[in-house]
């Protein structure tokens, strides 16, 4: 995510709706991507995205620039997405798996110009993430998909850097083992 200009944040905090829309346009795809990758559901991802930006709007005045704005948004997003995922899991009485997403997939949203490789890659990514517990899944999403550094992941999730490192290591070991089994 590119940085949001400080002036834009200040204007949005003062109630400037155009400034807030600028923030939305910069951050929404990153927020939505995390939400979708964590929940495996487009419907839930849309709801999470709405909740995240409503929370950002409500709390903008309290943001004091002591931490990175980008990291602050990532933190709100991961918390909201994980809560939504857990709530859905409880409602369904079992862990959400990749297969559950098939029913919520909206064919209208599939881009016609997507190549076979892209579609194949997307299916592979979804399958990999679905096989991970939520704490490892979020670390993989923030590191490998969003491109954050270890320190940024640690701040966003409020965990230690060593915890980020160990979760990534365990996630990758598990994924490699699963890939070997399928061969």
């Amino acid at each position, binding site marked *: 995510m590119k940085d949001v200009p400080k002036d834009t944040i200040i204007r949005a905090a003062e109630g400037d*709706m155009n400034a*807030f*829309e600028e923030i*939305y346009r910069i951050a*929404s*795809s*990153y*927020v*939505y*991507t995390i939400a*979708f*990758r964590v929940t495996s559901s487009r419907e839930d*991802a*849309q709801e999470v*995205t*709405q909740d995240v*930006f*409503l929370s950002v*709007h409500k709390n903008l005045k309290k943001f004091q620039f002591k931490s990175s704005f980008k990291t602050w948004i990532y933190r709100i997003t991961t918390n909201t997405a994980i809560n939504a995922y857990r709530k859905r899991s409880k409602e369904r009485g079992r862990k959400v798996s990749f297969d559950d997403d098939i029913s919520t997939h909206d064919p209208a*949203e599939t881009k016609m110009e997507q190549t076979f490789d*892209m579609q194949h*890659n*997307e299916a*592979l*990514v979804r399958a*990999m993430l679905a096989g991970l517990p939520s704490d490892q899944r979020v670390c*993989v999403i923030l*590191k*490998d*998909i969003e*491109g954050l*550094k*270890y320190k940024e992941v640690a701040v966003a999730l409020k965990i230690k850097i060593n915890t980020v*490192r*160990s979760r*990534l*290591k365990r996630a*990758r*070991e598990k*994924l*490699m083992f699963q*890939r070997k089994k399928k061969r």
Partner: protein
Amino acid sequence: MECRKIQKLILSDYTDGELNSDSQKQVQDHLSGCAKCGQFQQDLQSTIIDPLRKAELLQPPESVWQTIKSTIEDRETQTAKPLAESIDRFRERLRVLLIPRKPAFAVAVVTILILVVGIFSKVSINKRNVLNIYLEEQITFLDCLDAKGGHDSSYAGSDIEVSLEELFL
């Protein structure tokens, strides 16, 4: 460095570019000389890391923004409504108090003023009456004494009258 440690680093810091330059070079030197670790690193990169890093950035539908925007606008309207109502009510009360709209109101105010003045006046008159009653009793008592002792009763009365005057000054 032994293979187990190298593979641990491959699974984390080496792949993620978190090693310092010296440690990075140590791992690279090991990989160039160890086929097993080299294969391990290639498998991880091609089957896990590359697909994840090629994953698309997804765009939310425009309806998401529209919902957010209308929710914020509704929220702001709800906050403004009770405040506007309170301001209107306060303004109305102020108008009633400061601007006499009806003659009846003026008559009511004047009546209240008269009552207040009258009440205060009555309080003074009552106090006077109590004092007069007491003094009359004293005069009667002194008259009795005077009648027995031959004193000039007017003198006694004039002392009391002076006292009364002093009392009301």
